[in-house]
């Protein structure tokens, strides 16, 4: 472990030549050995399409759950794979998420239920937009919460904010430098005949805008190239799933372990809009089970791969809204309201399901159909921004949200 770090260090510094390495680089590379704590890292994962939270973290202690969902309800825990995985005698994980149970048991995974955006919209597009901008109900916000979450500082790493994908998602856009990387192995000038020439053009250009961005780009490319040289071997014998999320999280892990100055990362998974045939022959198999299998497998692989390094890392998951408490006529669920979020990492106070449970009786439902919201998603994200990332200016990260109520999930 330490030999590889040393190798990466010299490789990355070598790119710049003696004495010319920028300050952030030496800081980032030596950070592991430095006496002061390493930078904290926040990884945000968006489940696009509105995941059915009531079948993800199952309120099996709630009688109504079974009467509302005769075909969909996950059976009460009976220690078989066809039942929920008991968490606390009331809530249980979908069995496809069993790989996450050890993290929960270790006390490093928190679950927040009945959480989400207070905006009543049931439009995917509006709700995603609101959750990413961090300003429910306000469309004109031009930047995203994850970009605003970056603590102010000078001389930061060119890869402090990385999103996996070809474009920068809404949550990542804004004033702070943020890089979209589709694939670490392909973050370069592909035609080697052009690489050095372009670098020289942009580094010498008198065009201030392009000169600045060009320098940052080639700095980021160099850092990433120092990573590319080594094939990536996850620790602890982990094999990442081949799913898109699995591959994205593997790249984030790679960036983290390379100590290149990553602070926030973003990845996403699509396909959660289960209006039809959410479940197969049994409630524990089918569409949702397959998706959750990919999801849980990728998260668990990431956690095990990072090992001790999780001390600096928090992962948080979100989805734009939940789904109807009642199943619909086609073995699926329609657009609802409150949902469930996961947060795990070294400084997460886990092993617990947070949030006030609103109940599923008819009069307890939001607009008589959906899970009521008892926690604003900004309470969860805000706490991570303030207590994990150490950005104390929470009010500027979630403008217009004056009084966040932190639940104590970070400690």
């Amino acid at each position, binding site marked *: 472990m330490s030999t590889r770090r040393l190798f990466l260090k010299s490789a990355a510094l070598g790119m710049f030549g003696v004495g010319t390495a920028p300050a952030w680089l030496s800081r980032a590379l030596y950070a592991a050995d430095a006496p002061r704590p390493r930078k904290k890292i926040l990884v945000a994962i968006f489940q696009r399409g509105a995941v059915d939270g009531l079948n993800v973290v199952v309120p099996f202690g709630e009688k109504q759950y079974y009467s509302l969902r005769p075909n969909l309800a996950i059976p009460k825990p009976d220690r078989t794979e066809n039942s929920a995985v008991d968490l606390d005698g009331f809530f249980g994980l979908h069995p496809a998420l069993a790989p996450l149970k050890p993290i929960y048991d270790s006390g490093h995974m928190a679950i927040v239920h009945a959480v989400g955006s207070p905006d009543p919209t049931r439009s995917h597009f509006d709700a995603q937009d609101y959750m990413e901008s961090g300003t429910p109900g306000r*469309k004109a916000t031009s930047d995203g919460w994850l970009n605003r979450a970056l603590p102010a500082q000078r001389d930061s790493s060119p890869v402090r904010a990385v999103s996996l994908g070809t474009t920068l998602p809404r949550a990542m856009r804004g004033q702070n430098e943020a890089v979209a990387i589709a694939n670490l192995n392909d973050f370069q*000038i592909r035609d080697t*005949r052009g690489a050095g020439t372009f670098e020289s053009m942009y580094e010498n*250009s*008198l065009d201030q805008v392009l000169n600045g961005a060009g320098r940052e*780009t080639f700095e980021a490319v160099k850092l990433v190239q120092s990573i590319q040289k080594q094939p990536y071997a996850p620790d602890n014998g982990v094999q990442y799933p081949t799913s898109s999320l699995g591959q994205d999280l593997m790249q984030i892990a790679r960036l983290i372990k390379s100590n290149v100055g990553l602070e926030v990362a973003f990845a996403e998974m699509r396909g959660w809009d289960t209006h039809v*045939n959410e*479940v*197969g022959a049994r409630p524990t198999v089918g569409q949702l089970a397959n998706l959750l299998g990919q999801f849980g497998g990728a998260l668990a692989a990431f956690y095990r791969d990072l090992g001790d390094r999780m001390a600096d890392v928090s992962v948080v998951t979100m989805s734009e809204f939940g789904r109807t408490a009642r199943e619909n006529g086609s073995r699926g669920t329609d657009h609802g309201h409150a949902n469930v979020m996961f947060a795990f990492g070294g400084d997460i106070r886990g092993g617990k399901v947070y949030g006030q449970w609103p109940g599923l009786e008819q009069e307890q439902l939001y607009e008589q159909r959906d899970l009521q919201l008892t926690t604003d998603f900004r309470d969860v994200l805000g706490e991570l921004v303030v207590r994990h990332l150490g950005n104390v200016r929470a009010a500027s990260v979630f403008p217009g949200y004056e009084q966040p109520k932190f639940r104590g999930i970070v400690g």
Partner: protein
Amino acid sequence: MKKFGIALTLAGVAVLAAYSETDYSRFNQPLSEDQQILHALNRLTFGPRPGDVETVRKMGLKKWIDQQLHPERVAENPEVAARLRPLESLQMSAAEIATNYPPPQVLRAMTQGLLPLPADPEARQRAELQMQRLRARREAKEDGDVKTKAQGKGGDRLQQAMRQQVMSVADPVERRKLIADKAPQQVLPYDLNEAKLYRAIYSNRQLEEQMADFWFNHFNVYIDKGADRILTSTYERDAIRPHVFGKFRDLLEATAESPAMLFYLDNWQSVSPELGQRDINQRAKLRAKAKQARGLNENYARELMELHTLGVDGGYTQHDIIEVARCFTGWTISQPNRGGEFIYNDRVHDKGEKNVLGVRIPAGGGRADAEKVLDILARHPSTARFISTKLARKFVADDPPPALIDRMAKTFHDTDGDIRAVMSTMFDSKEFFSEGAFQAKVKTPLELVVSAIRASDAQVDFAIPLSMQIAQLGEPLYRKIEPTGYSGANSEWVNSAALLARMNFALALADNRVPGSKVDATKFADDPAAVARLVLFHEASQQTLDSIKKALAQREPTPALVAGLMLGSPDFQRR
């Protein structure tokens, strides 16, 4: 002594003024005649083609601009019609689109015999195939054993690359059929993307194409939001394009009553909050009709003022938003997923009195309530300023001089919102032909890709790989989710991933590695300065030339490499 004090004070004021105001003096420094021609070409077109500079010089700059403002006076390039011909959906009504390229809801209705199958035999065959697939998928899902496809990115990209290679050599009609059979829902974005790029590349009416892009973006809709998949094509054709140089009020109305906008900003679901007070049975019936409608939806009202007309600081309140939303109740769509038309439904209209921006709209009105709102907004001084500013940001500079905005806004006001007249004021201004504007804009991804095609005189027979490049640069066409549209600001397009992608695209294009586009590199020399004149239409910066020369000293130069480096240079990113 006293005098001295006054002098000091005055000096202090002068210093303060200099620091507190932006320096617009560069907008007073004129351009040479050659610069003027190049500048006009860079701004009014998607980038000059070989020969354009000479054409404009011969015709006279003023006359050329005037022609661009009157596209009907410009003979169109026959290449455009030839390339658009196979893209059949461009000519169809939304209802025909829904029948011929049925979305799942329409397919289900066809399966249940609620809707007739398409009359066209090919379309019918396609629909039947889709219905079969839908059934098969449903059965497989019910068994619960669908293996979710491995989504390894490498595999996807390889397949995609192979598909593109195959597609780019296929005949355009056959190519489209392949897509229609495999994924009929992809045909509409396919046709729209192809058409947009062919027009931008080949049209002689370049300013009209720039304006079509500008106004679509201003009145943005998102093609992947539900019914907008089948409504976006007619939106661009019937609501945007006829009005790009017309009266702003007409453009505003065309968008306000377009099914695409009514759907995108949810106004079609907005009904009078008073409905709750009426007979409960009637309410249930109305609700069943307007499916999810539960009351007022403010979405459109807000964006109409914030993004389409007044601007966010244009002087409206939350109360105005609610009042405008009340005026627009009943502006809806008949059967959006089947390509339905705009209808005004008086039964869900809020009949009460409203007050919009201080203007009283009396009770008992109907459809005219919203017409009145459009009148108020189109003629509001904030709108004149907001639209003028946005045009100047697109055509002049990110921070245009206020004096220019004042004159444009005055023209807007004096001509009752005549867009062509406002454009003329801008193109006639000293600020437009000034040092402050020259090369001040970074090309958008669309402009970058199209200008590279035009500058290198590439032959394009398949534009989808280009639109995928544009998406990778951050501007997926017709896929801006937010109603704000894409920002035209330089800062939006300059980031690491995008710059790398721009450089990679440039090298690939010149090296003929972009499927569907062919560059004849033999016309380029291996002398960087000569290549610069060919693709930049002016001298390259010394830094760019030196970098290329240094690189070439170490290896055998090829014209394609030199051209690729020039197209990826900082110089080429500006317009």
